[in-house]
């Protein structure tokens, strides 16, 4: 793996890969959007209204607003993760689409950058859909401020897309991805303040939480929903960029070992 580790050579040639995925998605866009949306929306509205009616305001906002802000980050994470795990794995391993592309004048760097930008685009759509619900239900503090959620969502998609590609690179089969969900994604959802504030956790877990990417995502998204400027913007942005970039670089080395030895 060390032998294959080097800085990616980025080029615009990733665009045809992105475009390929876009054209396939377009054929099934409606069911795909509904599928992406229905699940987080049901959780958000069900828990938000059901549980929210029993709860006091949290950090100065209704539970529904609190949960909506968490759901923006959470559903973006899920969309990016699912895309680079199951869909990228199908293209790489099952359909051998990557092999076909690599016979053209394309490098693995291009192919995986195409996958990463595609996962980012898809998760952007997913996050934006939740944002639309926030607008529709009037759960926001300041409309103009909520527009900043769009770039935040793109960054979150990039972050989890890059991380997920590492799993894609080492996975022997679809079943393997369950480990990632059980050991990484689900704990993250519970530790990073999607459903309840991190301050409710024991101090040890709070300090773990501070290192997790979803925490940084939520720390950016939640203040923006209620119309405040997030604190420590640079820290959160840099953390998300590092998680995503490191993921991409490591995934590239591992995939190079897998496909190009």
């Amino acid at each position, binding site marked *: 793996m060390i032998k294959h580790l080097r800085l990616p050579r980025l080029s615009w040639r990733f665009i045809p890969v992105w475009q390929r995925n876009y*054209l396939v998605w377009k054929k099934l866009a409606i069911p795909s959007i509904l599928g992406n949306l229905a699940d987080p929306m049901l959780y958000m509205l069900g828990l938000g209204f059901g549980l929210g009616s029993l709860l006091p305001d949290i950090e100065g906002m209704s539970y529904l607003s609190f949960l909506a802000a968490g759901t923006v980050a959470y559903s973006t994470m899920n969309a990016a993760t699912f895309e680079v795990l199951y869909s990228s794995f199908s293209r790489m391993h099952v359909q051998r689409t990557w092999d076909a592309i690599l016979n*053209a004048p394309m490098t693995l760097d291009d192919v995986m950058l195409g996958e990463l930008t595609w996962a980012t685009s898809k998760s952007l759509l997913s996050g934006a859909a939740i944002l639309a619900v926030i607008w529709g239900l009037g759960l926001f503090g300041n409309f103009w401020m909520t527009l900043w959620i769009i770039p935040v969502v793109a960054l979150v998609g990039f972050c989890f897309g890059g991380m997920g590609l590492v799993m894609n690179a080492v996975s022997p089969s679809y079943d393997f991805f369950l480990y990632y969900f059980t050991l990484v994604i689900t704990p993250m959802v519970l530790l990073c303040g999607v459903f309840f504030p991190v301050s409710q956790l024991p101090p040890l877990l709070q300090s773990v939480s501070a290192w997790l990417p979803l925490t940084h995502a939520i720390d950016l998204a939640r203040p923006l929903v209620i119309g405040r400027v997030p604190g420590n913007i640079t820290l959160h942005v840099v953390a998300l960029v590092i998680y995503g970039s490191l993921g991409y670089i490591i995934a590239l080395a591992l995939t190079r070992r897998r496909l190009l030895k």
Partner: protein
Amino acid sequence: MLKVRGLNKKYGDTEVVRGLDLNVQRGECFGLLGPNGAGKTTTLRLLLGLTEPDSGSIEIAGIAVPQHARAARMKVGVVPQMDNLDPDFSVRENLLAYGRYFGMTKAAITVRVPMLLDFAGLANKADAQIAQLSGGMKRRLTLARALVHDPDILFLDEPTTGLDPQARHLIWQGLRRLLAEGKTIVLTTHFMDEAERLADRLAILDHGRVVVEGAPRDLIEAHIEPAVVEVFGEGIADWTRQHAATLCLRFETVGETLFCYTDAPDTVIDALKEVPALRYVHRPSNLEDVFLKLTGRDLRD
């Protein structure tokens, strides 16, 4: 068109390609033959720059690989061993998507699509989904896809494996058409008839090395007696012991069959007619006999 010098590739302790030299001229069809594991597919991957050689040099149309693999691949069309058409696209969309990987504009690809579909005999299947195509159609589409950017040289990795005879003949016909247009073809196969039919020259590879190289006819003449009588049936062991050494120039027993190589098949056959329990097949020797003589009859798994 293709020049390979002293190519070496090791995986762990296994030397997969050992000191390979190849020269393929423009417009030539060159066959790479060899048993499973001889290094054919690895050689093709090296030629494409998909894996880095431990030593040696490769030039495609004057471009060094892997240093300038991108530029080299612009000149190359690839038909891989296993079909990897895009199952989410129709026949036409497969060609469109693939052309974009070569930096072609949609307009530039669209102009070529009817010609490519016609070449593949899929003109009436343009909007069919990949799952609806037969094995032969998929192969032809893969071949057409390899031509989308009008390459000078084609790499075909076992292009007719798994096809029925009709489908194979269609592929061969297409390949001959390409050769007539002046394309260069490098073909791996373990069908000897395919190599004999298509290749101007071929190399037999074993254990990563070229065992022999030349035109199919020349190889048969140089390495093998002109005729073969295959003998089998009750009492073959006795007959072999008594007559094989005197009647055959060279003989081999494989399982229950005696392969008698000879330049005087009639003499052998006359002798065999006196033993009605024995059955025989008389045929001219072919590339397969050369192949088996040089690479042995052991199974390679």
